[in-house]
């Protein structure tokens, strides 16, 4: 479609060169980006320092198609990057810009983009410059907390076993076990799955955290499903045992030894204790 003015490479292929390493690295940064950035921008800040930042494409950008990663520069600055070579050297602290451009020292440029938000060229040795959005990554070491949670989980499991074997009252036992299981599940979710450390909102202006938006609906639906199945599928048997209504005497299935008790659902392995108490 020739009627559509297309952005394209400016000039010849060697106008801007990305080495293979730089391209791969930049693509990785773009992939890991969380702000919806789609290009790597070569940018001049107000002091004239040059740097690489992740950005969204703007209408007047000059585009340098570089395989897996798209590099752009603002239209007005296109001439300035002519002959520039972008390389990635892990031993020299990340990306480097080589080339002759007026009044610029490549090393000066490096310092500039490290300070940019979402900078591409975070040197491998320094912490990633995430603006507090990814606490799990750049946050403090949680090893001690992990071990504490591990200890708590082991202790809770031991308590569960004790509850299952010791407590004879069926209702109390079930309640205790369910509470213990939920506490354990919550510990795993909060600490190991980092839910405790994720504070980011769905939108910056809102206080609603993204983790709730994803997790609350299925949890509600899960409760709705079980709750609405209860009066229908779960309307006999232990329903009576738990809530004190006498249920009918069991029919023994063909070919099975059965325990027949009156006054309870029968067969429930802890039901007997309750029954015993009632008789006293």
């Amino acid at each position, binding site marked *: 479609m020739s009627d559509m003015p297309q952005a394209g490479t400016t000039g010849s292929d060697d106008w801007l060169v990305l080495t293979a390493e730089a391209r791969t690295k930049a693509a990785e940064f773009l992939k890991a980006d969380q702000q919806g950035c789609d290009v790597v921008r070569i940018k001049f800040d107000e002091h004239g320092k040059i740097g690489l930042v992740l950005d969204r494409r703007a209408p007047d950008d000059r585009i340098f198609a570089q*395989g897996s990663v798209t590099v752009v520069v603002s239209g007005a600055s296109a001439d300035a990057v002519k002959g520039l070579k972008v390389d990635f050297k892990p031993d020299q602290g990340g990306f480097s810009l080589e080339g002759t451009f007026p009044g610029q020292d490549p090393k000066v440029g490096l310092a500039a983009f490290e300070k940019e938000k979402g900078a591409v060229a975070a040197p491998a040795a320094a912490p990633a410059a995430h603006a507090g959005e990814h606490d799990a990554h750049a946050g403090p070491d949680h090893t001690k907390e992990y071990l504490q949670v591990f200890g708590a989980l082991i202790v809770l499991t031991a308590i569960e076993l004790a509850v299952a074997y010791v407590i004879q009252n069926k209702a109390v036992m079930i309640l205790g076990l369910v509470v213990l299981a939920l506490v354990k599940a919550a510990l795993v979710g909060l600490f190991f799955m980092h839910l405790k450390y994720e504070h980011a909102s769905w939108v910056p202006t809102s206080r609603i955290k993204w983790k709730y938006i994803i997790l609350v609906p299925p949890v509600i639906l899960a409760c709705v499903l079980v709750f609405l199945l209860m009066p229908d599928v779960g309307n006999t048997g232990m329903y009576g045992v738990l809530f004190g209504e006498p249920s009918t005497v069991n029919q023994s299935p063909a070919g099975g030894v059965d325990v027949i008790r009156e006054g309870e659902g029968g067969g429930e392995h802890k039901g007997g204790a309750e029954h015993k108490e009632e008789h006293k």
Partner: protein
Amino acid sequence: MMDEHKHDAHGDHGTATHGHGGGHGHGPTTFLGKYIFSTDHKIIGIQFLFSTLLWFIVGGILALCVRWQLAWPWSEMPIVGKALFGSSGRVISPEFYTMLFTMHASIMIFFVIIPILAGAFGNFCIPLMIGAPDMAFPKLNMMSYWFMWPAFIFMGSSFFVEGGAAAAGWTAYPPLAAVHSAAPGSLHGQTLWLAGLLFVGLSSLMGSINYITTIIKLRAPGMKMFRMPMTIWAMLITALLQAFALPVLTGALLMQLIERIFGANFFIPEGLMVNNQMAGVGGGQPLLWQHLFWFYSHPAVYIMILPAMGIVSDVIATFSRKPLFGYRPMVYSVAGIAGLGFIVWGHHMFQSGMNPALGATFMVSTMLIALPSAVKTFNWISTLWGGNVRFTAALLNAVAFVSMFIIGGLSGIFMAATPVDIHIHDTYFIVAHIHYVLFTGSMFAVFAGIYYWFPKMFGKFMDERLGKIHFVLTFIFANTTFFTMHIIGVAGHPRRIADPTYYPMLMDLMPLNRMITYSAICLGFSQIIFFFNFVKSLFFGQRAPRNPWNSNTLEWEAPSPPGHGNFEVTPTVYRGPYEYASPEVPEDFLPQTRNLAAEREKATVHA
């Protein structure tokens, strides 16, 4: 006219040299990589479209066989009879009849409507309409298509196994479906049916996670949530429905599969005798299956209608040359329908012996769905009202969707009322209802979507005159077919019976039954026009420009058909999708990407 606008809107690119922009030009070059194992969302969408249209033909032929049997029971079937029943005197058997309607429904629902709406249109439209180069996970997207193939193979091959394909109804209620000796179709066909559905489920699950992530993370700059077209909103909410409802069905399918293979007892009641044999030790509850099945399959009804509603909203706004009436209420009503859709599944089970207290609960929640549905209907009508309506084939189909959806929706309210449902449950009234919603509803929207996006998909127009002929014939025959079903349903004609002449009370209905069959045959033959038009336009269609309908949404900013990576320049969005007849510009449309501020600034500078 279009070209002029384009030039203006993107005038600031004027100095850029031409060449490869954005992600263009990096697509695979071999045929296998480009069309078969493609990770390009557009190709995957088209793969879904072609596969589902082929299954549409299979499902349609099964439906015509059903109709033949009902009109002229046990008579020799033309054309297909010789091939299918050559050995049994070319006459259908009662078991084969149950298999026919089971597989007709299963194919139409799981292989046609759901994958064509979510798979074909979802894949094709989502990245294009939000301004993304592709889906968030292209490989996962490819997998979601290729997971359909085991399902196609399982279901297709089930016709040829001993006992034939599944014959327990598309709802697969146990114990009929779960016990091997209960019916011929429950021998092997049912196992293949369950395995097939498991794969369809996995495919949908992968698709839905991909859709949600793409819509949330990959929108073009400026594409706020409330600047998304209704199609995208519908796809997002549909994907959420699938993500949260489908896993329950997957669990239930696994349970029935284990029940059939290893003799488990989830759904077999205690002491059940089938053919003088114990069906198992029992202890399970058949109602549990119905609950789990409908927990997915009721939301699935909305999975089959919400994307259709989205498509229709876009088509109606475009061809009415008016902003969509009540954009935000439309979004909220889609969300409302979806939210309520999770708590109404029991209305399929009013006559199942379910707890009456639950029945009343489900009746109330079902009635509530009428509210957001009515909001949508009134908004479509208000969008058309006073518009500069262009009666293209796409718009005609979309308007047909609206009017037919009203009929289907109203008959739904009848059945939502538990006392009325006692009479009309399991009659042809419910058959009429589902076909009004799914055929004259969703399929009309599918036709509208195909006519609307065909230029974008293939760079060619579909033949408008053939499209209108196809529409008129389909509209007439669909109504004569399905409306009559209401009448015989209220008169007491049960569904799923192979021989109405067996019941003296139904003899009076036979003329109507035959009329339905005549109409259905005409309806089936009308679709030949569509397929002819589709194939003809694919090869010989008139070439389509970038924005043939003067539409606002982003997909029309990309070339027709878009290349690998979709857009030359990542579009920037400045406004909502329905700015038609805006007073700000002389044209009657104002694309989402047009930067009026920059244009004015430029105009001032030049002046």
